[in-house]
């Protein structure tokens, strides 16, 4: 399997524990991922499960003090072993990233146009050409009055518009892979639908591969080829999206699915995953999900379930084969009606 565009193997990320000293705590542990050229992978999990850290590792974008081990191979090159110049080229031309809060990632006192053309100009395109390219890019993301918008400042644009601008800027250099870290979480559902449609269109037109991060399993499953579910810093299930929706293997995936309210069914109580999500270092012995799992048994606490291949995907749950086909899904509605 060396032909994947991105291959993440055994990725573990640690941060310093507490005040000082050499103690470190894991926030991502042993993650394996792969994305083929033009493919879309959804990465789903609750807050703090390590989704953003995983995405940042792909570009080696870490805050001070953060350390990562394992390998990230992008198009045959090892990202963690790259020289600075190689890394700069990777970030400028091959991999792009968009974020949940576009406002935090754009200079508030420069115009949208200046922000958009700077990358192109830095790589030697003339200002005239850059402006022309950016205008057509803006049209691609649904901003038809591009030249007017380019003269505006970021705060004059709504969140949805600004996210489109970020997408335009991300694809301006024609990258092969786009890392999208909860790009729609701050948007309303209508705008979310538009942004997802734009991403889908860019993917088909440009053959762009996508790592799409969200906490909404159904959104990921509806828009990505396959979906990986993360809990406490580890991947607990990965399947083709279609199959995940109908045949989840892991109780957590099922729980995420059925806790989303439905358009057609009103439930007396939404089936919830009780308790709080935890980070990797907070996980106890055995299965990290056990304290919140409705199917946990004493055996679950004894050993940590490994991610094993099952038909159509991978799952890390001791009872996966036993529970197969019994876990509630969004399709049939999880609880009393």
């Amino acid at each position, binding site marked *: 399997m060396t032909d994947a565009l991105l291959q993440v193997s055994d990725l573990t990320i640690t941060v310093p524990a507490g005040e000082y000293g050499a103690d470190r705590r894991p926030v991502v542990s042993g993650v394996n991922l792969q994305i083929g050229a033009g493919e879309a992978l959804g990465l789903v999990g609750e807050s703090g499960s390590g989704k953003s850290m995983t995405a940042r590792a792909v570009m080696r974008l870490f805050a001070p003090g953060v350390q990562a081990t394992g390998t990230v191979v992008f198009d045959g090159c090892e990202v963690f072993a790259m020289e600075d110049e190689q890394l700069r080229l990777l970030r400028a031309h091959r991999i792009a990233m968009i974020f949940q809060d576009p406002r935090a990632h754009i200079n508030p006192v420069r115009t949208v146009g200046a922000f958009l053309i700077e990358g192109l100009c830095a790589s030697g395109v003339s200002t005239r050409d850059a402006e022309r390219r950016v205008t057509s890019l803006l049209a691609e993301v649904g901003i038809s009055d591009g030249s007017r918008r380019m003269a505006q400042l970021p705060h004059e644009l709504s969140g949805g518009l600004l996210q489109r601008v970020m997408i335009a800027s991300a694809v301006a250099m024609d990258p092969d892979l786009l890392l999208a870290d909860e790009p729609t979480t701050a948007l309303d559902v209508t705008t979310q639908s538009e942004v997802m*449609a734009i991403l889908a269109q860019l993917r088909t037109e440009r053959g762009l591969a996508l790592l799409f991060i969200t906490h909404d399993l159904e959104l990921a499953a509806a828009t990505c080829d396959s979906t990986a579910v993360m809990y406490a810093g580890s991947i607990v299930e990965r399947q083709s999206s279609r199959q995940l929706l109908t045949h989840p293997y892991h109780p957590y995936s099922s729980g995420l699915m059925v806790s989303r309210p439905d358009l057609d069914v009103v439930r007396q109580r939404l089936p919830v995953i009780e308790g*709080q999500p935890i980070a990797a270092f907070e996980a106890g012995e055995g299965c990290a999900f056990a304290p919140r799992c409705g199917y946990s048994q004493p055996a679950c606490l004894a050993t940590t379930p490994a991610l094993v291949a099952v038909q159509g995907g991978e799952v890390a749950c001791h009872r996966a084969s036993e529970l197969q086909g019994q876990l509630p899904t969004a399709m049939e509605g999880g609880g009393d009606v």
Partner: protein
Amino acid sequence: MSEPLLKVDDLRKVFPGRRGHDDVVAVDGVSFELAPGESLAIVGESGSGKTTIARMLVGLERPTSGSIAMGGAILDVSSRRAKDRRARARRLQMVFQDPYSSLDRLQTVEQILSDALSLDPDAVRESRAEQVRILLTSVGLHERHSRMRPGGLSGGQRQRVAIARALAVKPDVVVLDEAVAALDVSIQAQVLNLLKEIRETTGTAYLFISHDLAVVNQVSDRCVVMRQGRVVEQGTTAEVLHHPQDSYTQQLRDAVPRPGWSPTRSAEAPR
């Protein structure tokens, strides 16, 4: 039909335009009624004027025209006097979208809640700690949370504190402005269940503001669909969801992700 608890009539709000820009008509002739114990949703995309309505109801914004009546009496929404605001707060409360900024990060949960409890002039001071404990339990938190500050709580826990603060004086109506939008799907479900349970046990009426029709379906009896400051449709949630009269309602419905869903782009220019 029984007397409405809250009656909003032809409410309008115009914000003066900034230098060289036109005035913004944020809310344009909105009318609706809320019965005691009812849960009414206001749905619409962002910018449709939902928050502006909420802010006018609780007195954070002065309506340009129109009236708001509670229990048959017109609310004097323009009064800024603390006494009048307190009187209103005893009947009408609000929960904000962002639990990170709607709590004072320097206060402990106990201080936040006992401040809210002190609104009730008859409250006995001695039992304040006990009241805080009861309040915390009612929103699914533990006594040990009372000494913590918002920084030490998760998003879902903070929103529970904000809900507890709104419920402290047993108001007739709570306005919830996108109160679950900032939460993870799984935590959102917990809070939605909590809200439902509270309404069942206390009979508090909700004005539930959201952009997500699926969420609205779970918590509201009736809904008002808004677009660009106007009501485009209103009726029972089931009616509106299953037989939408307006194409905009259909658009809102189509935007909700579900199995088999695919995202669509509207023909209109984004705003």
